[in-house]
């Protein structure tokens, strides 16, 4: 199934990802966010090629949400830059935001609306052309399994369904890049599997680039090709899952090792500074 409103054909392939930056889905360079004296994100750089599914890992407070909020233009970075599908999030904000579908940690829902009217509203905000709007809305609803509840008020829906409505609003304009902030948090095991299947399906059939954050390691193993590990606002590991597996260690081992080493180093550095 083709997706509607693909303005230009996706340039896929390794060679294009390596050379010129505009073909990268996400390009982040030296990105920092400082609150007062402390850094929420510090000098973060990474690249994501078109069609990649990348897991953003790290403990709570590692800077995952802050990074995603900067990528989506919700908050401005203190330093550094980021480009979404070649568009700078700051200088070319409208273009960058048009290329992104974003599911925040708390799905941004209007409780008094129905899923259908809400998704239609989002489609208008995201500039889905009028001729394709109805089709796009219905497609997003059906992909997320919302047709049966499309006429109910969002406030009456279960948490799992609300999460799906959140996902539906992120994909309604068929964005090149999907940014999902903890899409499965707070759901029951069956709902988690459903949402994961949905995300995998989006990656497989839509060819979309997906950046999703989580602190569930199994989730990354289940849907991602690559993991980026954050701790204290800095990147501590960026590796394809296939390489991790081939090195013989499980993701959990790698994660634990990197995190403990990192914490050890920072506490040492802290002690050094005091002395």
């Amino acid at each position, binding site marked *: 199934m083709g997706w509607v409103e693909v303005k230009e054909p996706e340039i896929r392939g390794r060679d294009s990802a390596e050379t010129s930056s505009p073909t990268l889905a996400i390009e982040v360079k030296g990105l920092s966010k400082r609150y007062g004296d402390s850094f929420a994100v510090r000098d973060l750089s990474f690249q994501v090629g078109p069609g990649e599914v990348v897991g953003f890992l790290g403990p709570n407070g590692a800077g995952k949400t802050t990074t995603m909020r900067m990528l989506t233009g919700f908050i401005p970075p203190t330093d550094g830059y980021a480009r979404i599908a070649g568009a700078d999030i700051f200088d070319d904000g409208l*273009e960058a935001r048009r290329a992104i579908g974003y599911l925040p940690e708390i799905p941004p829902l209007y409780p008094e609306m129905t899923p259908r009217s809400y998704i239609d509203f989002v489609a208008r905000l995201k500039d889905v052309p009028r001729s394709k709007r109805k089709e796009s809305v219905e497609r997003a609803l059906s992909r997320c399994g919302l047709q049966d509840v499309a006429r109910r008020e969002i406030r009456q829906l279960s948490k799992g369904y609300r999460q799906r409505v959140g996902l539906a609003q992120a994909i309604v304009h068929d964005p090149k890049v999907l940014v999902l902030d903890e899409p499965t948090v707070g759901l029951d095991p069956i709902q988690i599997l459903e949402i994961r299947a949905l995300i995998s399906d989006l990656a497989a059939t839509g060819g979309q680039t997906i950046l999703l954050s989580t602190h569930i390691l199994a989730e990354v193993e289940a849907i991602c090709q690559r993991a980026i590990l954050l701790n204290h606002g800095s990147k501590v590991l960026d590796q394809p899952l296939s390489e991790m597996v081939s090195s013989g260690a499980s993701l959990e081992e790698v994660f634990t090792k990197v995190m403990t080493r990192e914490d050890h180093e920072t506490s040492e550095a802290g002690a050094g500074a005091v002395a």
Partner: protein
Amino acid sequence: MRHTGTIAMRELRSLFISPVAYIVLTLWSVIAGTFFLASLIGFQERLIQLKQFQMLQQIEQMNLNDNLIEPFIGSMWVILLFLLPAVTMGLVSTEKANGTDELLLTSPISIWEIVLGKFLAGAGFVTVMSLIIAFFPAILFAYGEPEVGKTLSGLLSLLLVSMTYVAVGVFASSLTRNQLIAFILTFVLLLILGMMLPFIVEISMAGSGMGRDSAISQVVNWMSTGSHVERMLKGLIDTADLAYFVLASAVFLVLSKTVIESARWR
């Protein structure tokens, strides 16, 4: 600017789903009906009185515009100060409370489109309120002969002042995520802007020896919506008064835009 309409329509629909809109419209209609009836009865009694005492000159001066419509719209303007904050309190604050500000601010739309969309939704609502008020003088046209121009000028002043107050409401609502705080803030701002400014100046300058004609007191009187409403109620449509309403609305909308924008930097 095409998103402005999208945001305004969504807001209006949500407003009319909520009970607040209906409570406000019901109260507004009931109070208007009561006031209108009271001023009508008062008008009649005064006329009878004057006739009894053969005061022909005063009877000559009695007319529906000055003695009924003008005080009626004038008192509804005061009621507006109390009811309007309930309409505008949620305009921006609920976006923050729902977390939907994150959707709006990460969509390919400008902050101006958000602010103007909110303003338009509120403006649409107060247009309905003004139309309800227009219904009452319309009754008088069936039984008497009020002046059309004067009546329309009075109604226009109510509509314009309502829209200016909506801009104030959007601003107050953008400052907080709490609807109750937004309500109180709007109410206080409207009270100051609407009627208290001249008093504040008079009191603070009481000992200074400066009179009512001093430059400061004139400027402050100009800033107050009250003086402009009163002139329009008397049937004077002056471009200076119209410019005041546009300017005051613009100031509060620019402030709203600044507040929403600066929230990103915190």
